[in-house]
């Protein structure tokens, strides 16, 4: 179609376009304003402003550090300076014997060396820190009262309560402190006044010994040294503690006191394939497996079994849902089930099963079965029976009736009509949905497990709640993610192999 536009007509078209564009712009800004208002509302409702108060950066960095590094604790008591205790992760029975190679001792001193060339040397009455970037050795010791201090950098006078009281009694004030910080009193300070003064001083950064790097903090009861994330020294009144971090998950394959402790994964595989028996009465395969399983630091046996439990929870729950849901779906489909009230009742049953949701089902089954797999299996099965029933009954109703009519014309029974006339049509949907439920239930089973049903979810919650074994938290999290990804990939593969295409799903 061709037409020539008169100038006036063109103008009209342009005006029309402009008007529409103007409307669109108005709509756009209107929607943007609504979205912004909503975000602002959510900001207030979720109290995100106060989050900075609750956010624990110290905890977060420790958590992160612990997930990829491990630490060794060196502990020495002032009362018995020759007795040096070195433990892996500070664990109760994980004591190094013999001592690791980064530790050396002679008659008068004991030295811990670090990867960056720094050393901490423990003497009977003091601790010396030689650190790259520091010209001089920094020495920590205890003063006459047993309070730890930095030897070359005495703490400011005004951090000593007796000195402050003396100054106030004498009517003097410190040159290094602002005058307005001076309490309005001559007598000894009470607890409240003293605490206030300490706070004011700390706010100005005047409570630390001058000339010290800022990674050394001196408090009333201890000296805390943290040159970087990987080293930490605490000098206290009764003991000295050193944390020495190293990258990696130590003892991941084999435990501290396993005969295979120095054998890595490949070493162990080598032993299995070709190697002398390490323990005479056991084959190497058995030994490697049992040592791996009974690793007390990582608890592989328990963790892997829990993972298996979770997978089975999802698998069996999904199986039951499919096995029960499909027949029910047929009974709820208009073209199969002529009785209206039965259809109606089944439909409402599906709604109810789905509506009650996994959360409530889990709570109900937890009360009945106690912690264990049945809880998870039934919670999954009940919810998904509802979902499956609803979805498949719709699929059955949408199936083409001609095929069934054809089979009916051959004199087939009702069951045969459904089996050969309808089932093949809905099979692709059924298979792909079942696999999709399996994927999503694997994630669901982790959650139900954490609610108390057991499996990997509970292990994860437990590891997190101990508050110190973050490497175990990271290990379990990683295991869960890898398993879920594998399940996803396997199910996608199976879906493609069975029905030839991948339905877009979750």
């Amino acid at each position, binding site marked *: 179609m061709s037409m020539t536009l008169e100038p006036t007509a063109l103008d009209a078209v342009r005006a029309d376009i402009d008007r529409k564009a103007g409307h669109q712009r108005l709509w756009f800004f209107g929607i943007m304003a609504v979205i912004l208002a909503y975000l602002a509302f959510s900001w207030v409702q979720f109290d995100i402003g106060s989050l900075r108060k609750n956010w624990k950066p110290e905890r977060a960095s420790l958590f992160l550090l612990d997930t990829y590094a491990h630490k060794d604790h060196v502990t020495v008591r002032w009362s018995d300076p020759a007795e040096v205790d070195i433990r892996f992760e500070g664990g109760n029975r994980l004591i190094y014997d013999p001592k690791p190679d980064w530790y050396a001792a002679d008659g008068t001193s004991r030295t811990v060396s670090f990867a960056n060339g720094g050393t901490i040397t423990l003497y009977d009455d003091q601790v010396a820190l030689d650190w790259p970037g520091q010209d001089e050795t920094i020495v920590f010791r205890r003063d006459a009262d047993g309070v730890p201090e930095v030897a070359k950098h005495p703490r400011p006078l005004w951090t000593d309560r007796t000195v402050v009281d003396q100054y106030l009694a004498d009517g003097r004030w410190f040159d290094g402190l602002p005058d307005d910080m001076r309490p309005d009193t001559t007598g000894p300070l009470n607890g409240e006044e003293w605490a206030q003064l300490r706070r004011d001083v700390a706010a100005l950064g005047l409570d630390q010994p001058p000339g010290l790097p800022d990674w050394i903090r001196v408090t009333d009861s201890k000296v805390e040294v943290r040159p970087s994330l990987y080293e930490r020294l605490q000098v206290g009144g009764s003991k000295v503690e050193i944390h020495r971090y190293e990258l990696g998950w130590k003892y991941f394959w084999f435990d501290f006191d396993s005969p295979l402790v120095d054998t890595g994964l490949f070493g162990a595989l080598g032993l299995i394939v070709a190697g002398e028996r390490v323990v005479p009465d056991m084959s190497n395969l058995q030994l490697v497996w049992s040592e791996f399983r009974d690793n007390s630091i990582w608890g592989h046996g328990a963790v892997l079994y829990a993972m298996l439990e979770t997978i089975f929870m999802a698998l069996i729950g999904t199986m039951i849902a499919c096995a029960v849901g499909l027949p029910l779906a047929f009974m709820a489909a208009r073209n199969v089930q002529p009785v209206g009230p039965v259809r109606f009742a089944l439909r409402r049953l599906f709604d109810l099963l789905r509506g009650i949701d996994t959360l*409530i089902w889990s709570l109900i089954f937890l009360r009945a079965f106690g912690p264990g797999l049945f809880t998870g299996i039934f919670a999954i099965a009940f919810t998904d029976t509802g979902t499956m029933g609803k979805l498949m009954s*719709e699929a059955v109703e949408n199936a083409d009736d001609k095929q069934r009519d054809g089979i009916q014309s051959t004199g087939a029974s009702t069951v045969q009509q459904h089996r050969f006339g309808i089932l093949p049509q809905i099979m692709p949907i059924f298979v792909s949905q079942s696999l999709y439920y399996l994927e999503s239930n694997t994630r669901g089973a*982790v959650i139900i497990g954490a609610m108390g049903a057991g499996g990997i979810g509970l292990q994860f919650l437990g590891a997190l709640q101990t508050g110190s074994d973050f490497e175990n938290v990271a290990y379990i999290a990683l295991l869960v993610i890898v398993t879920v990804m594998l399940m996803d990939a396997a199910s996608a593969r199976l879906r493609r192999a069975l029905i030839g295409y991948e339905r*877009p799903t979750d």
Partner: protein
Amino acid sequence: MTAILPEHLTQLEVELKRLQRRKSSYTVVAIVITVAIFMVGVDMANSANATPFSQGFRKIFDFPIDMFKLSWELGFVKWANRVVEFLPDLILTLNMAVLSTFLGFVFAVVLACFASQNIMRSTVIVTFTRRMLDLFRSFPEIVIALIFLYLMGKSLLPAVIAITIHTTGALGKLFSEAIENIDTKPLEGLQSVGGSWVSRIRFGVFPQVMPIFFSYAILRLEINVRASTILGFFGAGGIGQALSNVIQWRDGGRVTAIFVLLVATIIALDYLSDWIRSRMIGRRT
């Protein structure tokens, strides 16, 4: 009629028999595997469970009946008050879901553009974005939520973060599949008049896929309401947390009040999302 069949028909019959045999052997294998998994799993469950199956099965409805009795004793007016009492919590949970669906939607739209081969030339970027979306999708919400809950203290944000990440992954994958199925002619047209990449997407892609996007997002919203309730149960706030509190106190009236609120909300959302989606893209199965 004599039974002398042409050669090719005989072959066909042999082939058909062979296929049938193969099919039935597949079926047998599948059934054996299924039964084996089932047996192993039930055995595992029976040994792991505190209460044996038969005993637990009889008690399934003890708890709900118990809670119902407690609520019945309250009388309707008092019980209705309990329902009203938890409305603010319910709204909070709903908003958690809405916010994380919204944020996930925005991220997913952006990432989906980078994950679609037909509008993103670089295979490297497409593959990378897809793997990233797969990773996001695989992250179980509970893992992220619990870690952040631990780090941030009890707050709503961990749940929002966790659900947003999962939503981004789930929607992103669906969106990129939708984008890859579009008609590319509008894109070519826009390119021919010098449209930039952004304007090609804005005017060539979005108008085609937006209805599908919204329909997926509404389905996701329904899933996310369930998820935010569950995460609330672990301390993220909202009606889930309220439930975890009252269930410890065995406060029957409040427990049933929350149950009813939740079930009603989920069923209502279910119908609402069905209705909206059928209006948006027509009925699909």
